[in-house]
């Protein structure tokens, strides 16, 4: 059975809007954020995301796992970019060294060196703010959007019936997959399997993940077939369907959509005129003698 996200009706800012309006605003927010690398331009988006989070009514224990995972993931990659310098080369050309650490040994003629530069540090900060802003807004969607309205929301956004229902099922497939993964993990642990003790080379390690990934994949395929059977047996896709749920947009929903559209238009215009590119404070560069 498809599992729904842990949605609960709450008196929150995000839930006070029509879901179609919120999805449009979310997409505008995301594209606007992606238009910038300048942390000064990114800050308003970060503040909007924090405002939506704090007014969402979602309890910390509900989203703790998701947030810890996502923030950990983003921090890891921001740190990796900071340490290696990779990723930022496209947005800055020149680097101003703060400090350099050189390993006292060489490997095949290569001496490991860690350069800490103003650009790398600021790029990591910008990257973190940018991705965290989008992540906060994304994580809140499943907790704030009524699963019963997924289909009609996508239909209302202009998708055809089949695609709208497919999107509905896809949204619910993610938590279902999570539950099946956990059940498989439990079943294999009960047979003495310990994921954390997998040893060997990369190929061997992948092979040893078979007891988890094979059942999860097979179960997903079987479940999909069941869903298709259940839909076929009730005449899905034979013609235009009626959607029982009805959504209604109010003035404030139109305002939200317009705010989103203006935001994305403004962001793209600013980006077009060269504003909002990667920025490093001049004072900081001067401080390190640049």
């Amino acid at each position, binding site marked *: 059975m498809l599992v729904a996200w842990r949605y609960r009706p709450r008196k929150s800012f995000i839930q006070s809007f029509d879901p179609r309006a919120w999805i449009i605003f979310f997409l505008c927010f995301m594209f606007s954020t992606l238009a910038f690398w300048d942390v000064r331009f990114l800050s308003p988006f970060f503040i909007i995301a924090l405002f939506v989070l704090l007014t969402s009514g979602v309890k910390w224990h509900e989203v703790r796992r998701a947030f810890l995972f996502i923030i950990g993931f983003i921090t890891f990659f921001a740190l990796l970019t900071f340490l290696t310098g990779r990723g930022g080369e496209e947005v800055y050309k020149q680097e101003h060294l703060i400090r350099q650490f050189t390993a006292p040994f060489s490997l095949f003629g290569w001496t490991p060196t860690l350069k800490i530069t103003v650009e790398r540090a600021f790029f990591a900060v910008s990257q973190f703010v940018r991705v965290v802003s989008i992540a906060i807004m994304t994580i809140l969607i499943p907790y704030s959007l009524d699963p019963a309205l997924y289909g009609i929301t996508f239909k209302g956004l202009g998708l055809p019936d089949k695609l709208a229902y497919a999107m509905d099922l896809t949204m619910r497939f993610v938590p279902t997959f999570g539950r099946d993964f956990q059940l498989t993990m439990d079943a294999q*642990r009960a047979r003495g399997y310990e994921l954390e003790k997998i040893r060997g080379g990369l190929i061997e390690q992948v092979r040893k993940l078979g007891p988890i990934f094979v059942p999860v994949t097979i179960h997903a395929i079987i479940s999909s077939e069941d869903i298709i059977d259940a839909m076929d*047996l009730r*005449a899905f896709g034979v013609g235009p369907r009626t959607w029982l749920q009805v959504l209604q947009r109010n003035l404030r929903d139109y305002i939200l959509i317009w705010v989103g559209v203006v935001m994305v238009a403004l962001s793209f215009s600013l980006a077009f005129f060269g504003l909002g590119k990667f920025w490093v404070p001049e004072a900081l560069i001067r401080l390190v003698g640049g």
Partner: protein
Amino acid sequence: MPTDFPLVVENLSFRYRDREGAAIHDISFTARRGEILLIAGASGCGKTTLIRCINGLIPRSYKGEEQGRILVFGEETKGWTLARVSQKIGTVLQDPERQILGTKVLSEVAFGLENLGLSREEIFQRVDEALAFLKISHLRDRETFNLSGGEKQKVALAGVLAMRPSILLLDEPLASLDPASAQDTLDTVRLLADQGMTVLMVEHRVEDVLRIRPDRVLFLSEGRIRYLGDVEGLYKQVNYKEVKLPAERIMEFAKFAPAPAEMKILPSVADGKQETLVKFENVAFGYDVDREVLHGINLEIKRGDVIAVLGANGAGKTTFVKHAIGLLKPKSGRVLVDGRDTREASVAQIAGTLGYVFQSPSHMLFAPTVHDELAFGPTNLKHPKDQIAKEVKEALRTVNLSDKEQDPPLALSFGQQKRVSIAAILAMRSRILVMDEPTAGQDYQNYMNFMDAILQMPGFEAILFITHDVDLAVIYANRVLMVADGRLVADGAPQDVLRDFDRLNANRLVPTSLLELNVKRFPETGRFLRAEGLAHI
């Protein structure tokens, strides 16, 4: 051909594209208006294939070679769209969980009607009618995920009935239900038939279905009709060991057979030592911070215990049992396995002592062959290679799958996969065996055989099984636990716990003919026996 027969099946055969041999051969029958036709037979005998042919999933979703024809009210269904078929023939699948698509009851019941493009007014009217007919109007705005098994089954049925079919196909509708929910479902089926609907019901639980007086029984064997006729004729045609019949009937036949041999249950504990293997100390648990689902469980599982855990759908039986292997850790209190707190041991470490068979085999099977699947557990537990080979052979023999050792487990039927999943745990030779619904979806003969074999296997010191089948508790258990709303409401010998019929009914359990007979004859027998045993006393 008279057109007043809702359903006519003529010389129907079908072979799946990727399988050798036909799944069904030359099936012919007619079904009348208002008739209940019970379709029975062993796992893999072709029951589900027959249902798929009738409801149109074959050949539309399952490809293969089909011969013969199916007529609905005199019209051949070949070439009909599924939409057309589904308005005449409604299907409720084996597991309602696999059929329910909507997140809310209202959207689930309305799904088919939305697909037919009916007006919103008509959809609301039909949904309300279907819910009222099944007496579940109060569920209309509930989330489907939070419904009990019986409620899910009714909601799935409501979704089909709302489309107003003339023929209803039910594929093992009782498989996942507690006895009271099963009884409710059967009563509904009887009512539908009395109102003129033609019902074809595939079911292993023949005894339960007989209670609603099916008009005829179609018994399939290896894809062919072995018997088609009234219920009385079935008793004469079919061996009482093949289908679950009422206990009185079994006794009538069994008294002419030799008395069953006395079972040597748990031969490893013949020394009679009574040590505690698992201990629950005031265990409480909740999946969410603000909702507790297990409350204050205190319990000791001792050497020599064969425990049946009974209770309604959603009573907390699986949650309770998952604590024993450490898959769930108590929010308060503690669980000790072999004296060791489950919080201080990994699941893999506990698995050496306590083997746990999950409800669904599809969550664990992965290996290329049955042999490899069974060797997986003992290998993880670092058993020696030659010992593993012996353990695998023994486990396969116990579940009657020795001929499938080199087959891929994922290509087996559901019933066979279930037996592989049980064998995979048997091969680990843990001291304690825990099984969650081991007989669900299995045919009677198979599950009785493997239950007999498992209980007589050397090595186990205690066995615990969760079941909805009261007769399994009567036949095999020496102790019964009853769980309700996350609490242990009864714990004792079967003759003490199960003779309280009021308590059984309060816990959505229904006294069976075997239980009633055993209670009646207890002064004479001094213990609970299977029907074959009672026949010789």
